[in-house]
């Protein structure tokens, strides 16, 4: 299992469209992926869960990956949210 804190740089935050793209990316991996914000943990492959967190730009989230392709998945998800 690998995990890393990251600050969201996306200028709009994770609004509906970027959230959908994020979830698409997450779904291309077999690892279990989670996101934690303010102690709330959700499955990164679920769009509703992700949107329920209402992640804004500049907020810090914890991305957790567990499985065969965890390293790759974590890297890609981190780079997605840290691009502005």
């Amino acid at each position: 299992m690998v995990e890393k804190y990251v600050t969201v740089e996306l200028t709009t935050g994770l609004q509906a469209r970027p959230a959908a793209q994020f979830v698409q990316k997450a779904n291309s991996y077999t690892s279990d992926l989670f996101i934690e914000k303010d102690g709330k943990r959700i499955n990164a492959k679920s769009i509703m869960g992700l949107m329920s967190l209402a992640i804004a730009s500049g907020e810090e989230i914890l991305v957790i990956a567990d499985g065969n392709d965890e390293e790759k998945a974590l890297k890609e998800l981190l780079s997605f949210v840290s691009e502005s």
Partner: protein
Amino acid sequence: MAKVRTQDLLDRFNLELLAGEDGVHREINTSDISRPGIEMTGYFEYYPKERLQLLGKTEMSFFNDLKPEEKRDRMEKLCTDITPGMVITRGMDVPEELMIAANEAAVPVMRSPHKTTRVISRLTNFLEVKFAPFTAVHGVLVDIYGIGVLITGQSGVGKSETALELVKRGHRLVADDSVEIRQEDYDILIGNAPPLIEHLLEIRGLGIINVMTLFGAGAVRSHKKISFSIHLETWDQKKQYDRLGLEEDTMKIMDVKLPRATIPVRPGRNLAVIIEVAAMNFRLKRMGVNAAEEFSQRLTNMIEQEKEGKNE
């Protein structure tokens, strides 16, 4: 966890703020409530000063019999810099000494028109809910025939589609994809949707739909006690699935063990009907009718009889 402040009590209950306005943003850290009866006698050794203090008729009548300097002393000791508030019940008059001490230490003094026991139970209930352990689970919560069924499983296994079919069959959606669960008491789990995605359902290919506007107010619930859970997984040839229903599998959420059934998913299996029946069967079991157990008993009896028949 959300912080609870004295202001929240004022917003929620019919309380009158009489003194110590500066302290309304004090934080309440425990759901315990104290009735400082023994403290009125001057014994402050174990005074739980971090709790909300409640002054009822007994405390007040004892207090009224004290000498003026004692009155001042007790009230000054009761109003500490961390006491989140004082509540006076039955609409009783607030003594001058308390007003002065409370304003000095900025301890909010509130008055309720109701009886002490009533106030205690309502405040305790409110605080217990606020301080209840909390978690979020990936899954769908549906109210099926009055039973809160939590459907879990891998992403893309068909939880939301099953929920849609269940709603179409007249059941109620509580939460899709992410269920917030709090534990009340030591054995009760209450689930609700995160406020932002309440009433919404995501279906692959359709996107986000609003179940309440589509199916009406009868198709949704804001929260529901969770009594049963169903785990959906893609059919695994090598795995043994329950064929009898004699054993009861469980899953643990916080301190509560929730009965669970694992249902394999395969094209052509109507999951909604299976889950509906599972919920009914669960209800039946709780009412004392256990089909699997009854059948097993019948089979055992039959075998015993045949054995006896041969021996004779």
